[in-house]
C-alpha cells in the first residue's frame, strides 16, 4: 500500500473547504473515488468542485496522505480524523484537525485559526491523536481539547488552549493573549513568554518530569526544533484556571 499524494495544481484563490481530506476515510477509496470527492469553494459556493479539480492525486486506498502546496486557504483538513497520517508540505488554513480523534497531522508551514478546534456547539474538541505544526498558528488553537497532543512551533494568536479539558498544547513561540483561559485540566507548555490569565497562580519553578517525554517525542517523531535546554529545563508552573476546576497548568519555560 503506497501513500496517497495530493499535489495542488494551482494556488487556491478563495477559501476552500477541504474537510474531505481525511486519511482514515481515504483508506477505502480508489483513485477515482478520491478525485470525485466534493470540495466547496467560496469562489462558487453553490457549485461543488471535485478534489481532482484542485489536486493531482497519486495513489489510492491508503491512510497515509501527503499534501503538497500552499493550502493556507484550505479549511478543515483532517476534520474528525480517526487515524492514519496526514503530512502537509506547506501551510494549512483554518479548522485543521477539528474534532480529531486519532492519528497524526504534521504541517511544515503555518496553520490558520481554530487549529485542533471543536465542532460548533460541541462540549469538547480534539479527543485524541497528535497535531504538529512547525510554523505559527492563528487564534483559538486546541479549543476545548479533551485529549491529545498539539504542537505549534511558532507563536499563536489569541486564546490558545481556551477551555481545554485535558491533553497537552505546546507552543514553541509566544502564545497570544488569553492563552489557557478557562482550562479545566491539561497542560499548556509555553516555550516563549506568556502572561497567564487572571485565573492562574504561580505554584513553583521545577522540572516537570513529563515534559522531556513530550518534547523528545516531538523532536524524534515529527522533527520539531527543540533544544536540550527546553527539554530538560526549568519551568514555572502556573495552576489554573481557578475559575474552573483549577487542575490545569501553564508551564512557562525559564529561559535563563
Amino acid at each position, binding site marked *: 500500500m503506497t501513500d496517497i499524494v495530493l499535489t495542488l495544481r494551482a494556488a487556491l484563490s478563495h477559501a476552500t473547504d477541504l474537510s474531505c481530506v481525511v486519511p482514515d476515510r481515504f483508506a477505502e477509496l480508489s483513485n477515482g473515488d478520491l478525485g470525485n470527492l466534493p470540495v466547496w469553494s467560496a469562489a462558487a459556493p453553490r457549485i461543488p468542485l471535485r478534489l481532482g479539480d484542485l489536486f493531482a492525486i497519486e495513489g489510492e486506498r491508503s491512510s497515509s496522505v501527503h499534501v503538497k502546496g500552499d493550502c493556507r486557504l484550505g479549511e478543515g483538513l483532517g476534520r474528525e480524523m480517526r487515524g492514519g497520517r496526514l503530512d502537509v508540505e506547506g501551510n494549512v488554513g483554518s479548522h485543521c484537525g477539528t474534532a480529531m480523534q486519532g492519528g497524526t497531522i504534521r504541517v511544515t508551514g503555518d496553520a490558520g485559526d481554530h487549529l485542533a478546534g471543536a465542532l460548533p456547539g460541541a462540549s469538547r474538541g480534539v479527543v485524541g491523536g497528535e497535531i504538529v505544526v512547525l510554523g505559527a498558528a492563528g487564534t483559538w488553537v486546541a479549543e476545548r481539547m479533551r485529549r491529545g497532543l498539539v504542537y505549534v512551533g511558532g507563536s499563536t494568536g489569541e486564546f490558545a488552549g481556551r477551555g481545554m479539558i485535558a491533553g497537552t498544547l505546546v507552543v514553541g513561540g509566544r502564545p497570544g493573549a488569553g492563552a489557557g483561559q478557562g482550562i479545566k*485540566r491539561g497542560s499548556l507548555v509555553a516555550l516563549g513568554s506568556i502572561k497567564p490569565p487572571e485565573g492562574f497562580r504561580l505554584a513553583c519553578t521545577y*522540572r516537570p*518530569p*513529563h515534559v*522531556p*517525554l513530550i518534547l*523528545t*517525542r516531538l523532536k524524534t517523531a515529527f522533527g520539531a526544533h527543540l533544544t536540550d535546554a527546553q527539554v*530538560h529545563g526549568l519551568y514555572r508552573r502556573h495552576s489554573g484556571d481557578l475559575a474552573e476546576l483549577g487542575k490545569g497548568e501553564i508551564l512557562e519555560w525559564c529561559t535563563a
Partner: protein
Amino acid sequence: MRIRGTFIEDTFAEAFTMRAARIIITAHSLTWARHAATKLTGFATSVIQCKCEAGVDRELDPKETPDGRPGVSVLFMTMGKDDMPKRLIERIGQTVLTCPTTACFDGLPEVPDRVAVGSSLKYFGDGFQASKVINGERFWRIPVMEGEFLVQEKFGMQKAVGGGNFLILAETVETALAAAEAAVSAMAGRAGVIMPFPGGIVRSGSKVGSRTSKTMIASTNDAFCPTLRAVTASQIPEGVNSVLEIVLNGLDGAAIEGAMRLGIDAACREGVRSITAGNYGGKLGPHHFHLRKIMG
C-alpha cells in the same frame, strides 16, 4: 572436559519458568537511580521467602532512557502472573516513589502482557494526581514534596527463566570466593541477566524439601556441604573444602547460556577442582543448561 585444569562435570543446571518485568529507573544523577534500584532489589534473592527475585540488569546512558536522564535497568521476577502486580506496586511504591528525583518506566514496551502499576500508585496523589498519554502510553504524575513522581501506568510482563546455576568446588574458601567473584564480574552488566543473591553469589545452595520438616520448602544442600562430607551422600570430591554457587535469572535461556559461558570460563583456575550444576533430575523445570554443551 577440563578448562585450565578445572574439571567440568557432565551435568546440567535445571531452571524453571518465571515471569519478568523490566523496570527503568531514571533520576537526576546515576547515584540516585542506583539508590532507588538498590532498595527496589533489596531482599529479593529468592522467591522462597522474598516472593520475588530482582537485580540490576545494567546501567543506562541518558541516550537510552525515555526522559534522557541517567538510569538503571532492573529485572524483576515472580513465579506467577498474579504475583507481579502486587510485588511491583508495593516495591516501586516504597522504594522508587520515595527516592528523590526518580521516575519509573516500563522496560519491556513491546510485550503484549501488561501489568497495571501506575494506576494503583496514583492514589498516593490523593486526587491531585494527573495523567499524560504520550505516544499511546499513559503516565501518572504524582505530586510529592520534592516535585513530581512520574510512573508509567502499565509494565510489560513476559515469561523468563529462573534458577540457572553453576557450582564452584574449590580447595579453599579463598579460592572459591575469588573464582566466584571473577565469574560474577565477567557476567555483570549483560543485558537480560541478573544474579539476585548478595554479590551474585550463594553459599547456601538448597535442596527441595527437608529431611526433618514437612513444611520446609527447601533446606541445606547437604550433598555439597563440606562439613557433612563424612556423614551424608556427599557429592564433594576429595580435596574440596568450599563450594559456592552462582544463580542466574534471565529473560530467556539464551541470555543465561551466554552469561554462564563467560562466568564458568572466568571461574576456572588453579585451586578450583571442578564446576558442576544443580539439578533435580529434570523434575523441577523445563530449562536445562548442559555445562559441557555450553562450554564446548
